[in-house]
């Protein structure tokens, strides 16, 4: 898998928002939601993006599908930079990249029937019409574990898990290659989460889909992903294969994050936990230096002034920390 060309490559991606802007004067406050991300996703792979709320993981997903226009950087999809394409040029790529949203209650239009919801993309991209279109919708419904009868119903008639299935059918309708899953299971009950995750895995096997899986539930991300990137305040802190990341986390933030996952095993070492002091800092007008410095237990003077480089320490294992070798005795 390592020799093939990546399906999508993100280079130095930045998305900044101006906050507190009024009509009369331009705000000077810049919220750096995503600040220079670099990663790639291979075809057929699941790439997990984790981080706490406000770290920019959702903004990353939304920028890749161009729901937001990137402030800077490149998004190379299959060899073409789509970061600056016009809306018209983007249409071809919209068909290839689809998205599944977090909240199945808010992401389906309550006034549209299931047929309309799933068929909307088919119509927009003029893929099928008439009976063929309806047949395709039935197929999709059955594929995601719903029934034909459901096609004429409205979203309020479904449970959360079923709605998320409709959202998945909608994303699949135009046969995309890449699906951005933005917290697709966090609004669902525990017993339903496994159903949806298994279905996503099956669909990937069958259709050769590529996923960007965004979530804060680390154990689920570990389960579903091949490689994982850990974000903190708009920066990528660490990136490795999922086993490597969990067995051998090199960044102090990843170490703390992993140790704070509550493990469903009462006898598992409770005292090994690293409790982080304080809260996530503000992404508004950040100062140079490591974003994690204020909460890091290994913080040195230069951490507060020099932004650490995102570098490959072990093969395929990237870390943004000045002292990664020292901390981990490498």
């Amino acid at each position, binding site marked *: 898998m390592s020799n093939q060309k990546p399906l999508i490559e993100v280079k130095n991606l930045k998305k900044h928002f101006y906050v507190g802007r009024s009509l009369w004067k331009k705000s000077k406050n810049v919220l750096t939601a995503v600040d220079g991300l670099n990663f790639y996703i291979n075809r057929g792979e699941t790439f997990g993006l984790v981080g706490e709320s406000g770290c920019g993981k959702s903004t990353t997903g939304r920028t890749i599908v161009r729901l937001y226009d990137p402030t800077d950087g490149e998004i190379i999809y299959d060899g073409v930079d789509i970061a600056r394409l016009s809306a018209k040029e983007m249409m071809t790529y919209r068909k290839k990249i689809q998205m599944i949203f977090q909240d199945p209650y808010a992401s389906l239009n309550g006034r549209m029937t299931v047929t309309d919801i799933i068929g909307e993309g088919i119509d927009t991209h003029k893929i099928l019409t008439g009976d063929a279109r309806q047949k395709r919708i039935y197929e999709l419904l059955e594929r995601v574990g719903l029934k034909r009868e459901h096609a004429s119903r409205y979203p309020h008639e479904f449970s959360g898990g079923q709605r998320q299935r409709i959202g998945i059918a909608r994303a699949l309708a135009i046969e995309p290659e890449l699906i951005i899953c933005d917290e697709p299971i966090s609004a669902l009950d*525990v017993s339903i989460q*496994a159903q949806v995750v298994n279905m996503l895995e099956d669909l990937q096997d069958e259709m050769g889909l590529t996923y960007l899986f965004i979530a804060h539930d680390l154990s689920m991300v570990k389960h579903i992903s091949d490689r994982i990137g850990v974000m903190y305040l708009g920066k990528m802190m660490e990136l490795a294969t999922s086993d490597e990341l969990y067995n051998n986390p090199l960044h102090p933030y990843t170490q703390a994050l992993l140790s*704070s996952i509550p*493990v*469903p095993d009462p006898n598992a070492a409770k005292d090994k936990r690293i409790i982080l002091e304080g809260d996530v800092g503000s992404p508004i007008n950040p100062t140079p230096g490591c974003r994690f410095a204020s909460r890091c237990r290994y913080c040195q003077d230069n951490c507060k002034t020099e932004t650490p480089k995102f570098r490959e320490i072990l093969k395929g294992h990237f870390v943004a920390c000045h002292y990664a070798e020292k901390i981990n005795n490498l």
Partner: protein
Amino acid sequence: MKTLLKVENLKTSFYTHLGEVQAVRGISFELNEGDILGIVGESGSGKSVTSLSVMGLIDEPGVIKEESSIVFDDIELTELNKREMSNLRGNEIAMIFQDPMTSLNPVYSIKNQMTEVIRKHTNMTKSEALERAIELLHMVGIPEPEIRIKGFPHQFSGGMRQRALIATALSCNPKLLIADEPTTALDVTIQAQILDLMRDLQNKLNTSIILITHDLGVIAEVCNKVVVMYGGMIMEKGTIEEIFYKPQHPYTKGLHKSIPKVNLNQKERLVPIEGSPPDLMAPPSGCPFSPRCPHAMKICIEKASPLFNISESQRSSCWLHDQNSPQVEGFVKVKGDKYE
């Protein structure tokens, strides 16, 4: 150890325009002094309604049915009138809620909201109450409490708001603290801080805690006893070791299998529980889990199982424990009619 809270045959229903919603359907459990009891369940399992019933916060159109009994510290709570209950609430039993963003009033300062509670329940003067509030904020780990107390909720982060709410809840040294999903709205690193704080406070103050959550991981971190709820009923209860290492009920077993294990290296496929949670408007007449249960038998659909005594502390509500049901691997048979 003394029994602090004994809930017996609690039934809470809501009479809506669409009909009766039976949120809690006859549950019993007890809590000793110093216990941390976890109540796990999915949305709609009745775990929050249970806690609101204990707090006496069930309002129209909700009703706690006649046959229910909630005995707290030798007082029958269901017989108290509004005034007596409101004296008890806050003083003896306190509660923290899921969403620290909405349980604080945005237009009053933290100082205002904390001293209001303290003065309502004690005879303290304004300045004494302020002193007490600062001391409490210090105890829950808010830096520079003298300054921060003057701030408003929007100036506090999510974790700090939850700390402030815990401090407020503890202000009158309650014997029982009910925490309804206290960390669900928080990030994992902040969740770790809050759970750590709760464990710490429990050690220091010996307050009994009921922790309501849907996250088995959180339960494993802090609780010593667990009640597993589903469809308004108790499926299984026992000590933390029993529920995690020797689960008996098919629902508890299913829950364990449907969550990914972080410590495993090989990719193991998750085993989901098929189907979806029951509609409490028309709950299944038998075991609420029977429509989703891989072992469901005829009797399961007709009649809900009693709680079988698995051990001194463990109870499981499943017909498979009955002598007359077929032998299924992993299910203990219970002799005679030893169930409650």
